[in-house]
């Protein structure tokens, strides 16, 4: 693939100039994410090979309007590291004269990200006994981060988020009565704007956590971080779509809500009220459902990839989750 050849040549230059290495090898695409390219490669130097990850805007330049931008994402990851959050080390943020577009190079962290293995695999049976609590502790550290160095992050109150996702849903022009029911339920019970808005990760869930037997080794995918009610993150990780079949472990299919909340409070997070957390879990299910259903339009217009069609049809799984939350 010409793509791989050109990128290898570009990366050779970057690691020589910026990281004092001699070359690169084994460049391979890890994921064809819609908003980011993720590549794995070996940095070669001094007789050793160091595995690294390149996260890059698709084609180097296309930047999603809803994402924070790759330079900001790298800065967020560095700030998170300073706050004691496990993250991959950022090695280099691409500069215009690197000629590779926008993105950054980070260390490769060994572990498992596949949600089903973390939720059900025998190798993680012991890990699952403390993982939910540990996630609560990590979220408390994220929410203690100072958002002021990141003025570009979107700031939204709960009511604004409900209105924003309501608009996205209505723009699809496809009636989904269960979504209307949920939007109405959320509006009727909407919490006030948080007294202290916090930096939230925005996509903290099973699937975005690099997990080893010792627990969470790195929190990944900071591209939709924003400033909001901190309970948003605590609800999102409980959404049914990331339980991987383990219904009685609402936290990512690996733990109990009570353990998540206890870890959060013990590490300095604000006290959790059950109905407040439930509101955010309902919001999270609806948000994921609206994100899925939006794939139908993208599939028809700009990217007729079969995977998009299948994700679009996952919207109905959030409808059954919402029915179980609201009408059971």
């Amino acid at each position, binding site marked *: 693939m010409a793509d791989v050849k050109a990128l290898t040549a570009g990366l050779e230059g970057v690691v020589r100039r910026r990281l004092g290495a001699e070359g690169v090898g084994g460049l391979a*695409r890890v994921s*064809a994410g819609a908003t980011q390219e993720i590549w794995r490669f070996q940095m070669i130097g001094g007789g050793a090979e160091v595995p690294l990850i390149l996260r890059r805007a698709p084609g180097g330049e296309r930047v999603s309007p809803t994402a924070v931008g790759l330079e900001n994402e790298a800065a967020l990851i560095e700030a998170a590291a300073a706050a004691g959050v496990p993250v991959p080390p950022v090695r280099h943020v691409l500069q215009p004269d690197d000629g590779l577009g926008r993105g950054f190079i980070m260390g490769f962290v060994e572990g498992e990200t596949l949600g089903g293995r973390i939720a059900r695999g025998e190798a993680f049976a012991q890990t699952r006994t403390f993982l939910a609590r540990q996630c609560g502790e990590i979220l408390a550290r994220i929410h203690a981060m100072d958002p002021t160095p990141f003025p570009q992050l979107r700031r939204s109150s709960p009511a604004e988020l409900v209105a924003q996702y309501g608009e996205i849903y209505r723009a699809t022009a496809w*009636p*989904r*009565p*269960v*979504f*209307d*029911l949920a*939007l*109405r339920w959320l509006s*009727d019970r909407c919490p006030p704007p948080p007294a202290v808005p916090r930096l939230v990760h925005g996509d903290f869930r099973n699937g975005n956590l690099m997990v080893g037997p010792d627990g969470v080794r790195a929190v990944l995918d900071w591209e939709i971080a924003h400033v909001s009610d901190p309970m948003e993150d605590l609800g999102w990780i409980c959404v*049914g779509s990331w*339980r*991987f*079949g*383990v*219904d009685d472990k609402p936290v990512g299919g690996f733990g109990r809500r009570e353990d998540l909340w206890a870890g959060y409070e013990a590490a300095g997070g604000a006290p959790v009220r059950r109905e407040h957390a439930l509101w955010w879990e309902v919001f999270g299910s609806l948000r994921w459902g609206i994100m899925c259903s939006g794939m139908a339009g993208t599939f028809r217009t700009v990217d007729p990839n*079969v*995977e998009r*069609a*299948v994700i679009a*049809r*996952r919207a*109905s*799984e959030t*409808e*059954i*989750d919402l*029915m*179980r939350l*609201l*009408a*059971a």
Partner: protein
Amino acid sequence: MQDEPKPDEILAAVARFLREVAAPATTGHLSFNLKVAANALEMSRRQLELDPPAAEAEAARLRELLGQDGDLAQLNAELSLRLAAGALDLATPGVAEHLWATTLAKLAVDQPTYWGYRAALAELPQE
């Protein structure tokens, strides 16, 4: 009259080929995408089989619930409007039953293995 085999039989055979022959013969992204393609075909086959009677029952429930006529898209748009306005809600007789039946019918096509669907089937009172 078109000849046999029928579309549902052909879709099932192509899905089986993708999943059992093509996917194991490849690796990485290509193998993954072949399984996604097999899933998409199986979903389409289920829709051909299950949707006609389910859509008819859904429309009948909606006409009863809303007291008006129209095609399925119009009826659903009207239900959406009334739920959004709060004119109908889960306390309205028939609304919860209708939404449950409709959602279960969607899952039977989209993802009959989804754990939440399985759990809902187990929890619901048997008719």
